[in-house]
C-alpha cells in the first residue's frame, strides 16, 4: 500500500503543543515504561516514528493516543528529552481536530485568539439573548415563581435544545472517528455482533475510568474522577431537576445535597489543576496548551458564578442573582458549545470510544494471529 508522507507533519503538530519530537532516537524506553503498552497496542514510541516520517494517514487511524492517560513516566524516563507524553497529548488535540468535520476544532487549537474571540462572541450573544428574553417576559427583580426573569421551564427547554445540537455535532465527529480508526481499515474486520457485545465498555470506561486507575500513579486518576463525577452530577441535576435546583428560597436537600457536593468537587479540582499547571507540580502539568488554560478558567468561572447566584438567591438578593444567572450562562454556553464538540471536552466521548474500539481491535487481531507468533519466539528475533 502506498503511503503519502507529509513532511510538515511535525510542524503541524507543534501548533497543537508537540515539542522536541525530532529528538527521539527510538530506544523504546517510553514503550517499555508504559504500563499500557501490550501485545497489540505498542506505544508511544511508534507514534513518534509516524510523526518523524510524516505518516499522517497512519496517525489519523491511530487509537493509541486515547489509550494514554499522560502519567508522564515516559517523559521522565526519556533519555533524549523528547517528551513522548506531551506528544501523545498534542496528538489527542490533533486527532480531535481531524475528527471534527467543521474545521473549527483545528482553528481553535492552532489559534488561542480565535478560540477566545469565539468564546467572547458566543458569550455576548448568550448574554444579549437571555437579557432580552428575560426583560420581554419577566422582571429582573424576580428570580423564580411567576414573572421570573429566567424561569426554570424556559431554561430547561433551552438546555435540551442545546444538548440536542451538541450531541448531534459530537455524534457526527464520533462516527468520523470510527471511520478513521476502524471502518476504513480493511485488514481488521470486526463483526457487528462483537460491537454489540462489547458496547457496555463505553459507559463502563466513561463512569469508572478504570484504565486511568491502572497507571502507576493513582492520584491523577482520583482527581480526574472527582472532576468528572462532579460535572456529571451537575449535568444530571440541570438537565432533569432544574426546577428543583432553581426553586427557592427553601433548600430541597434531595437535589441540593448532590449539587453542593458537585460544586465543591468542581471548585476543588479545578483550583488544584490550575495551581498544578501554574507551579508545574506534576509531569502532566509541565506543558500547558492555551486550550488547557481556557478550559480550566471557564470551568472555574462557571462553578463560581453558579455558586454565587445560588447564595444570592437564597440570601434574598434576587436582582443580583438574576444578573449573575446571565453571567453564569455567558460562561456555560460558550464552554459547552465550543468545548464539547470542538475542543477539550470532546474527550469525554473519544476516550471511552477509544477504549471500546481498541478492545474490539485487540480481540480481532489476537484471534487472527497465529498463536505461535504471539509468543516471543526465538526465530523472528535474530536480526
Amino acid at each position, binding site marked *: 500500500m502506498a503511503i503519502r508522507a507529509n513532511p510538515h507533519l511535525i510542524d503541524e503538530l507543534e501548533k497543537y503543543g508537540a515539542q522536541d519530537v525530532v529528538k527521539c*532516537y527510538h530506544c523504546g524506553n517510553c514503550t*517499555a515504561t508504559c504500563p499500557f503498552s501490550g501485545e497489540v497496542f505498542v506505544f508511544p*514510541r511508534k507514534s513518534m516514528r509516524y510523526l518523524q516520517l510524516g505518516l499522517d494517514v497512519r496517525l489519523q487511524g491511530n487509537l493509541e493516543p486515547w489509550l494514554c492517560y499522560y502519567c508522564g513516566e515516559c517523559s521522565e*524516563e526519556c*533519555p533524549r528529552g523528547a517528551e513522548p507524553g506531551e506528544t501523545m497529548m498534542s496528538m489527542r488535540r490533533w486527532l480531535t481536530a481531524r475528527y471534527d468535520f467543521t474545521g473549527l476544532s483545528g482553528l481553535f487549537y492552532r489559534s488561542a485568539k480565535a478560540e477566545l474571540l469565539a468564546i467572547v462572541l458566543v458569550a455576548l450573544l448568550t448574554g444579549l439573548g437571555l437579557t432580552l428574553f428575560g426583560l420581554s417576559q419577566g422582571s429582573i427583580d424576580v428570580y423564580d415563581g411567576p414573572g421570573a426573569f429566567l424561569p426554570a421551564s424556559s431554561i430547561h427547554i433551552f438546555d435540551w435544545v442545546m444538548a440536542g445540537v451538541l450531541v448531534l455535532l459530537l455524534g457526527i465527529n464520533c462516527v468520523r472517528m470510527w471511520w478513521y480508526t476502524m471502518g476504513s481499515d480493511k485488514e481488521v474486520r470486526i463483526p457487528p455482533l462483537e460491537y454489540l457485545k462489547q458496547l457496555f465498555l463505553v459507559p463502563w470506561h466513561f463512569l469508572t475510568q478504570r484504565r486511568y486507575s491502572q497507571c502507576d500513579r493513582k492520584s491523577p486518576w482520583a482527581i480526574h474522577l472527582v472532576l468528572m463525577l462532579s460535572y456529571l452530577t451537575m449535568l444530571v441535576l440541570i438537565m432533569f431537576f432544574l426546577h428543583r435546583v432553581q426553586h427557592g428560597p427553601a433548600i430541597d436537600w434531595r437535589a441540593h445535597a448532590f449539587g453542593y457536593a458537585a460544586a465543591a468537587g468542581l471548585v476543588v479540582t479545578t483550583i488544584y489543576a490550575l495551581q498544578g499547571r501554574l507551579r508545574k507540580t506534576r509531569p502532566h502539568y509541565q506543558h500547558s496548551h492555551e486550550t488547557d488554560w481556557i478550559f480550566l478558567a471557564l470551568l472555574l468561572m462557571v462553578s463560581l458564578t453558579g455558586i454565587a447566584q445560588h447564595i444570592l438567591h437564597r440570601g434574598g438578593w434576587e436582582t443580583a442573582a438574576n444578573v449573575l444567572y446571565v453571567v453564569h450562562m455567558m460562561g456555560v454556553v460558550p464552554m459547552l458549545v465550543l468545548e464539547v464538540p470542538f475542543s477539550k471536552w470532546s474527550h469525554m466521548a473519544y476516550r471511552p470510544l477509544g477504549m471500546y474500539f481498541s478492545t474490539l481491535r485487540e480481540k480481532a487481531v489476537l484471534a487472527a494471529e497465529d498463536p505461535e507468533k504471539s509468543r516471543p519466539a*526465538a526465530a523472528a528475533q535474530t536480526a
Partner: protein
Amino acid sequence: MLPNVLSALEFERLTNASGPTGGRIVTRSTQRNRRTKEEEWVFDTDAPAPRSVAIIHCVGSRDQNHNPYCSRVCCMYSLKFAHLVKEKLPDATCYQFYIDMRAFGKGYEEFFERIKDEGVFVVRGRSARVEARPDGMVIRGEDIVHDRIMEFPVDMVLLAAGLEPARGAHRLASVLGIRPDDDGWFTELNYNTDPTGTNRGAIHVAGVCQGPKDIPDTVAQASAVAARVLGSVISGSVRIDRESVSSAEAAANAARLAGTSPREEPWPSEPTHT
C-alpha cells in the same frame, strides 16, 4: 536488590579464569556467612548456571538524565560478553537490547555478524525495566523492528554501564593544571590536529583520561605520546603550538611556570554524576 543484575566489571570478574568461580558463569546464590551469621549473595562454583542472559546496552550513556556522551566501548564488550556466554553455556539463550550498534572498528562489524550466527538474539530497543517477581526476574523492553513488547523471564542481566572519569581525576587535573571538560575528561589541545597535547606543553594525555576509548585507540594515542616525549627529550625543548594554545591560556601557563600567579579563569567545577 536484584542479585543477578551484574555490572560489566562484575561479569568480567566472574567469567575470568582467576575469578571466584574459576571462570564458570553461575547465578548468585545465598549462603550463610559463618562469622556474621547472615545470609549473603555469593558466587558459588556449584550454583546453577543461568539459562538465559540479557545484556542491556547504553546504561547511563547517551542519556540526558545521566551521561550525554556515548561511552564507545560498551557495544563491543557487550558482544564479547554474549560470545563468552555462548562459548561457556551453549544451551543458554542470550539477548542483546541495544539502541544503535556502534561496531565501528576494524573487524568489529564482522564480530557482530558472528555473534548473530552464534544464535544470540539481538533486539533493537533498549530495555527499560527489570523486575523481581516471585518466580524470578522479568525483563521488559520494546522490540522496535518487530513492533512489539518483549517481556520474558531471565536468570541474569548484564548492564553495559557507560564510562565516567575516575574518582580523583578532577583533583589530578587541578594538580597538573590540565583543564577537564564538562564531563570531567581531560581536554586535549585540539581534537583533530593535536589530540595528545595539553595546555601544559610538557604534559600529554593518552587513553581514557581524555575520553572513552577502546584498547587499540588507547595504544595508538599512547604511541603518539611516546613519540612526542622522545622528540622533546632529543631536542631538549618543549614545543607548544602557539596557534592551538589561546593567548589567555599561554599567559596563564607562563605565569604558572614562573610560579607567580594562579589561574585567572575559574576552574571548572567537578561534574556530578547521578
